[in-house]
């Protein structure tokens, strides 16, 4: 590029310093919390020694919430795949005003605060059978909230390939609709489906706004457990629990970064 000396003037160092400061603001508390979760006594500091005691304690008290969160996340993934991929296909095959309107409507659960959606669900379905006390009630909320992300990720990929031509080719060879869908459409949208799936899993595991109102004492998810460990227990346990949460979401975050680096559209 042009003269580097101009670029590396005081302006460069000032901006670098500012950017590093912002980065420190974001990462220092993360590192502190990870260390606190592994420190024998946070009040005394690191010299009290490192221990896995708090992580074990978290597992003892909260393994139920962790397993329920995973159960809901994968059930949510199954639902958004079953509902979202066909819906995205329908929207992609008939672009037009109605498709735009449907897409706009489907995105609404992201635009409206989770608290409002949760209240709406409670006043409408809170009294229906045992639904209120079932984990399925939380699942419904998560599906509403994550479906837009699946539809969007799949639509983005479908918009970048010429589905009509691919399908016409397959149809002219005599492939029926189901065969085309399974062997032409789905494989071509693989990257979008993968990006959407990672997004759905991460969002569902971390969802709190809806879940806090929808949960019952018997259906606590990981973020609900986080909230009550922050409120009531010692800082080491809250930290160890946060560490467990980080470990759960990091793999999908790394995969997502890898996907977007390959130039595929993500959300």
């Amino acid at each position: 590029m042009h003269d580097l000396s101009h670029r590396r003037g005081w302006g460069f160092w000032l901006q670098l310093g500012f950017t590093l400061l912002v980065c420190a603001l974001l990462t220092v508390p993360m590192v502190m919390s990870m260390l606190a979760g592994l420190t024998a006594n946070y009040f005394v500091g690191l010299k009290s020694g490192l221990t896995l005691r708090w992580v074990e304690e978290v597992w003892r008290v909260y393994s139920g919430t962790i397993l329920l969160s995973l159960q809901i996340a994968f059930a949510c993934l199954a639902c958004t795949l079953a509902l979202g991929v066909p819906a995205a296909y329908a929207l992609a095959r008939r672009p037009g005003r109605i498709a735009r309107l449907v897409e706009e409507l489907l995105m609404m659960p992201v635009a409206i605060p989770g608290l409002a959606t949760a209240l709406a669900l409670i006043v409408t379905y809170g009294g229906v059978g045992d639904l209120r006390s079932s984990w399925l009630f939380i699942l419904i909320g998560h599906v509403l909230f994550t479906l837009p992300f699946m539809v969007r990720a799949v639509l983005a990929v479908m918009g970048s390939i010429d589905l009509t031509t691919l399908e016409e080719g397959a149809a002219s060879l005599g492939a029926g609709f189901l065969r085309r869908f399974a062997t032409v459409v789905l494989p071509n949208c693989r990257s979008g489906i993968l990006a959407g799936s990672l997004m759905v899993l991460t969002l569902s595991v971390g969802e709190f706004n809806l879940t806090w109102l929808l949960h019952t004492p018997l259906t606590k998810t990981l973020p609900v457990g986080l909230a009550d460990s922050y409120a009531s227990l010692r800082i080491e346990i809250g930290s160890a629990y946060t560490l467990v949460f980080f470990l759960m979401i990091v793999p999908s975050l790394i995969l997502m970064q890898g996907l977007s680096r390959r130039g595929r559209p993500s959300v």
Partner: protein
Amino acid sequence: MSACVQDAPLPHRPAARPPAGPGWTGEPLRLAALLAPAAAVFAAFFLLPLVRLILIGAGGAEGWSAYLTTLADPGHLDSLISTLALSAGVTLVTLAVSTVAGLFLVRNSFPGHALLVALLTFPLAFPGVVIGFMVIMLAGRQGLIGTVTQALGAGKLVFAYSMAGLFLGYVYFSVPRVILTVMAAAEKLDPRLEEAARSLGASSWRVVADVILPALKPALISAGALCFATSMGAFGTAFTLATRINVLPMTIYTEFTLQANIAAAAALSVLLGLITWAALAVARSVAGTSVAAAG
């Protein structure tokens, strides 16, 4: 669904072609059937409950005017105003911080660049409760800032459990999202415009003010609206820091659980939903896309 056949195709999309061959018969019907499950779930579990919530908000003795009178309650009005002010402040600070850092990252390359970008965007997946905990780690009773100010002899500075803590939390929450948007927009800038301005003798500040910022404007408006909407509706961070913070989501929560005042909670949620939806509609009309508003 047959009506949509008449619609003009959107630009940049291949036009829907006429059915050809045996595999294509009954296509509109099939597409409708593919869309139906999602539409049914959405209608049953989102549209219907939302309509119910709106009706409950108007179901009290005052009817539809309840939506206005709920704001006559000084506590509610206070909470609405402070939430609006907080969100506006968070939006401005986040945009400023992210524009400086994002532009810097796009326009310079140096060792460790990729790591810096990864670190800055990592908190994207944190729910609000975790962000609240990060604020406690920074500015809580055993937090870093308090320890530093104490060591400097200025007394222990603790502000996590107040509006200032919430402000910090929402900025923390929004910076990674807005930086990504700024970087994506800045990468598309035409460097020739900047070079032209420079060759005409414009100073660095003039280039930023007259060339770069105007070009980034759509992205900034869209990211700002998203940031504003998220701050209005976020619940987890406020819940973690709670004690004395009076923001709209907390007010709705206390009205619902502690006061069992469902009509007021419903009216306030509908109001809140309208504000966030309108903000995001602005974002979408300007930029056409939205990033994850997780929480």
